[in-house]
């Protein structure tokens, strides 16, 4: 069953066509990677899917619901949560608090609940604390739970952002270049984490430059070039695709 469907999605900025008539179907389960040279329109496509930009044309359907042009918070509420290419943590909050913010969607209570602080609210707070701790544990950040997010090294910030997104219990997790800025050890660890996320039932769609990560992590690969989809298939199929090789000509040896 398809979880996410892109139907002729196009995004123009003035005369520039950043995403050009892209259609694709992401099935429930597994890891799908979107790859392509710089400026191929990957992040623009992510913005169109997650509601941060309304596509100029085409439709985005998620879980049978047309989410084209819907506000990001409403899209998140029906189970599509993203991370950002440039990590966007709440820098002044601790790692723990960041993950707790991620629990927002599946908890209740606003100003009045905060002031009254009923037993039910307290119970829910304890639950949030537990959930957040488990997630920090899952990405290996338990030791830095009480450290301000902005003081964490970059690799840990990336992992924290993923933990925070998972706290929202998404059906589909969009990761925008999760390995950017990580060393090879951290990348290998990230790859294992992403596989584990998929194994626990969350579908993952990721943008990545690191081909080693893509080849070892993704079940399917979609290739964009100049805003168009030029290939789609398993990592092996895509690697041998002449159009993909042509698009990546000029890339360093071994990158594709």
């Amino acid at each position, binding site marked *: 069953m398809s979880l996410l469907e892109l139907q002729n999605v196009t995004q123009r900025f003035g005369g520039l066509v950043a995403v050009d008539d892209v259609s694709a179907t992401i099935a429930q389960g597994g890891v799908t990677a979107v790859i392509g040279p710089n400026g191929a329109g990957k992040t623009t496509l992510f913005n169109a899917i*997650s509601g*941060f930009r309304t596509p100029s044309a085409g439709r985005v359907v998620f879980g049978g619901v047309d989410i084209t042009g819907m*506000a*990001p*918070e409403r899209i*998140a*509420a029906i189970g599509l*949560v*993203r*991370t*950002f290419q440039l990590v*966007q*943590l*709440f*820098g*002044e*909050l601790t790692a723990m*608090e960041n993950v*707790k*913010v*991620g*629990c*927002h*969607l599946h*908890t*209740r*209570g*606003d*100003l009045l*609940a*905060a*002031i009254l*602080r009923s037993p039910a*609210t307290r119970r*829910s*707070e304890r639950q*949030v604390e537990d959930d957040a701790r488990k997630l920090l544990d899952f990405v290996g950040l338990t*030791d*830095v*739970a*009480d*450290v*301000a997010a902005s*003081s*964490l*090294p970059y690799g840990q910030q990336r992992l924290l952002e993923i933990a*925070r*997104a998972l*706290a*929202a219990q998404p059906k589909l997790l969009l990761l925008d270049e999760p390995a950017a800025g990580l060393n090879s050890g951290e990348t290998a660890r990230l790859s294992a984490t992403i596989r584990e996320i998929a194994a626990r039932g969350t579908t993952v769609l990721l943008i990545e430059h690191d081909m080693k990560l893509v080849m070892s992590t993704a079940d399917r690969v979609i290739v964009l070039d100049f805003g168009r989809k030029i290939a789609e298939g398993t990592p092996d199929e895509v690697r041998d695709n002449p159009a993909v090789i042509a698009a990546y000509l000029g890339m360093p040896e071994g990158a594709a």
Partner: protein
Amino acid sequence: MTKSPTITFPDMTRRGLGALPWIAAAGVLAYAFFVGGYLTTVMSFALIYVVFVTGLNVFMGYAGQVSFGHNAFAALSGYTSAYLTTSHGFAPLPAFGAGLALALSCALIVGYPTLRLKGHYLAMATLAIGLIVYEVAVEWTSVTQGYMGISGIPPIGIAGYEITSERGQLAFLTVIVALATLVSWRIRESRFGRALSAVAGSEDAARALGISASRYKLSAFLASAAFAALAGSLFVHVVGFVSPEVYGLHMVVLAFTMLYVGGIGTIAGPFVGAVIISLLPEMFRQFKDYQDLAYGAALILLLIYAPRGLSTISSLFRRAAAKKAVVS
């Protein structure tokens, strides 16, 4: 919980230091209560400002927004209280209810379009809201008596019992401030407060996690307007008089100075800042003319040299500890 001793030890120091400003400010309050006289009056003013600044802190410190116009909500509620009690024989509590309702309705109407603005547009729009209310207070003489002001406003009272003594008022205001601070603390330590911090940290990231930035900004705006309205009404009953100058631009600058002295975004900040800033000019009574000058200069110096305020000096320890923990 934490394994690293580099966190736990300074953490204790931090707790101790964090309580210091509380203890000092509470000490002054207790002293004022027992000594009585002029200091009691000064502290009453300080406590009213604590309520106002606590509201600003929710909107600016927690939610990371900007408002130069919260004096408008204090003025709306204060004038409603003054007008209804003097001209229509209302008791203070129902008059305050009406004032709060008016202030919140106005906050709701102007809040929605205003909070869509960012940066200096937001700053200017809120400043304009404060100035409009001020101008109306000056010009709408049939209700506000213009610059003359409204006098003879009855003191705070509940169910026929009026609090007329200065000590009684101070005690009453202490209870209000304790409640306001409790509310501020509970907001901070809640799902609602976390959502506000998220909006302050990154609106995009907050929205990607399902937090409606516009809704939470509006909620914080309304909550802080309610604090402002409460402070505005308390003022007229404590002083017994109101004029447009009470809620002028200087109210905003004074409140910002308090917020920055105490520490923006902290729970103790409004209390500590308001007490310090209210006491300072009294210690230098002979320099009365220099008060506003001193506030302005102090604010500039604080912004440059201690942007996070006095009560956050302890958090420097936390930051140092956090860095050490990461390095080790």
